[in-house]
């Protein structure tokens, strides 16, 4: 049998008995469960290393300084704004206003890029000026190790998200993604919101507590 309403965008369609959403959305949700567990593994490792007696773990304020935390808080704000922009992409697409959708999508991508830029600046600064002082002071060497692993792994997610959203933008530009393909945007949005959500966890664990 030919799959129902099959198109290049969506592959085989949903069956008669389904959860009432596209296959792609279930795929993304289940992927996110997997991704969440990867972060859970890393965060559990972080927690275990940090919250043991005599772990010699620096407080965030010692490690990053007030300005450092504020910078990252600002970065968090940027990422949340980018997430909000992604919501607008979908809303405009549903209204059939593809021009505006594209603009919001560009704002989303810009948010991701700014986030990455600030993170790159922060990493450079910490590597050159900051962390070796901490090590000299005898703090746990796993503080920078976990810091780079967690923020780096998340940063890779942001980078992939930026690429993902750029591909979506190219699809909209070339007319392959039209106002009917809301689920394509919605699935990209799921990923982008997830990246945002995970960052809030990472930020809380690494910079706030």
């Amino acid at each position, binding site marked *: *049998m030919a799959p129902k309403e099959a198109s290049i965008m969506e592959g085989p369609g949903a*069956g008669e008995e389904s959860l009432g959403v596209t296959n792609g959305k279930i795929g993304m949700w289940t992927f996110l469960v997997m991704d969440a567990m990867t972060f859970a593994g890393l965060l559990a490792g972080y927690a275990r290393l940090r919250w043991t007696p005599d772990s010699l773990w620096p407080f965030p304020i010692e490690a990053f300084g007030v300005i450092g935390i504020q910078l990252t808080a600002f970065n968090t704000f940027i990422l949340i704004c980018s997430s909000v922009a992604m919501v607008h992409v979908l809303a405009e697409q549903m209204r059939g206003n593809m021009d505006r959708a594209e603009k919001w999508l560009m704002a989303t991508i810009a948010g991701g890029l700014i986030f990455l830029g600030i993170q790159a600046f922060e990493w450079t600064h910490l590597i050159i000026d900051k962390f070796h002082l901490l090590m000299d002071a005898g703090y746990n060497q796993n503080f920078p190790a976990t810091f780079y*692993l967690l923020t780096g792994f998340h940063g890779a997610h942001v980078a992939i998200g930026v690429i993902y959203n750029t591909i979506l933008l190219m699809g909209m530009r070339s007319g392959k993604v039209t106002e009917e393909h809301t689920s394509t945007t919605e699935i990209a949005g799921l990923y982008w919101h997830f990246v945002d959500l995970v960052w809030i966890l990472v930020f809380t664990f690494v910079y706030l507590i």
Partner: protein
Amino acid sequence: MKEITAKGYLSPLTEEAKTNKLVYLKEWLCSTDAKRIGVLYLAFALVMGIFGGILSLLIRTELAQHGSQIFDPSFYNALPGMHATAMIFFFIIPAFTGIGNFVVPIQVGAPDMAFPKLNLAAFWILPPAALVTFMGFFLNSLPEFGWTAYPPLSNNVYSGMWGADFWVLGLILVGVSSTMAAINFLATVFNMRCKGMKMFQLPLFTWSVVVTSFLILAATPVLTSALLMLTFERLFPGVFHFFNPAGGGDPILYQHLFWFYSHPAVYIMILPGFGVISEVVSTFSRKHIFGYVLMAWSMIAIAVLGFVVWAHHMFTTGIALEARVGFMFLTMLIAVPTGIKIFSWLATMWGGSIKFDTPMLFAVGFIAMFTIGGLSGVVLASVPVDIQLHDTYYVVAHIHYVLVAGSMMTIFAGAYYWYPKITGKMYNEFWGKIHFWLTAIFINVTFFLQHWMGMKGMPRRYYDYDPQFEWANTISSLGSAALFAASLIFVVNMVWSWKSGEDADENHWYGDGVNLEWLIETPPNHHNFHEPPEWKPIIRQHVSPDQPGGLWHAKD
């Protein structure tokens, strides 16, 4: 050149492929048809299974007699880990993924998997991943830390070999592949069922794949994160000290993360087997499965409990006694849902019209011998006993009763059961039965004495042992050689029958198959069904014959 006349999904898609074998081969290797990908998975698993079997033969040859036999100790040290890796990640899991790929879309009444291209990609990650994982064989630098890769043994100081880095990378790739397959299965089963196929109308094999996919989804990434940490620590030893106490790390952390995956992994390796057995027992007893709903829920219970028992692998690492006792009771609790399954299979057979074809023989053999493995698991779960038996051959015996008598025999049962559907041919029943009897006998010859060795204190993974164990080891080694030879019968039977077997019927097993795969032609067509099927809900639960739905195949 002779024209290819295969039927169904085996038939060439283009005119060119009909006469040109290379084009036909390319069509197979690039196919997005779940059935073809399933066959690719099975073929890959077969090759890797033979490879893993040869590795186990090497181990047993070295251990056949006391003293040093053929290898130097460092090569021997690498063998158990390589054997385990080959069997777990490249034989058992791909074999079940292969069967699932073929059967699940048909059983739910879908034309294909939800993401056909992802499906193909997931498969094609595997062969390169195998190459990367076993790169140590080519570089002559095999990792010698077993499949568990515990630091500090696995860090760059004690295992500086390149092969170890490749091994870790390979395992991460395999994890990616199996999570991709899991995502695909879940989307297919949740979203692509045909009309009337409610969740509690699903065949139990499909149910088992659903539960397994959730396990893969939640457990595998934790192994990935542990391996990522290990890789960083190995590659940048001056910066990362996650598992190194000298740098403020904690080696036990690795074990926690590792077993958080690797305990559920044993359920990833056995739950699809449970599903296969449910199908086989029900078909060959000509009865609906006893306690269908409970069979589904008991799998879910095993999956949930499987996530909260990991530390029973770590009773001797010095974790708190309170934690150990808690994990001990949780571990023992798993025997309850597993017992439900065992007794449900027995009750399904009870009063049934049983036919002992090869799949059924394997199913019954599985039930008997897997129970031994399950019971020795309860023994090991007990903290004081485990402290005594930890890292002895008792553990080896336990895991092999669960994985060889469990997973491997269920893979054989599934392969024989669906063989007529997959190939359109019938395998040789006589040699199938010979294969079963040799397998059943030599599993016990190989592994039963290992319980005794373990109780007497023979450590696992060692190059040499106390002379008092020699006679038992010799018997075990002979048994393993015979077991391997018996498996070759299977390989020959499968390959030969595909070429020269008799044609199989649509509903080959006496017309007793009730699920959708038995209601379509053999072998199935490219899109499984000519038009969207409609599933008339049946009473899955076994009820007494005078009740409605109590009779097998009661058609209105």
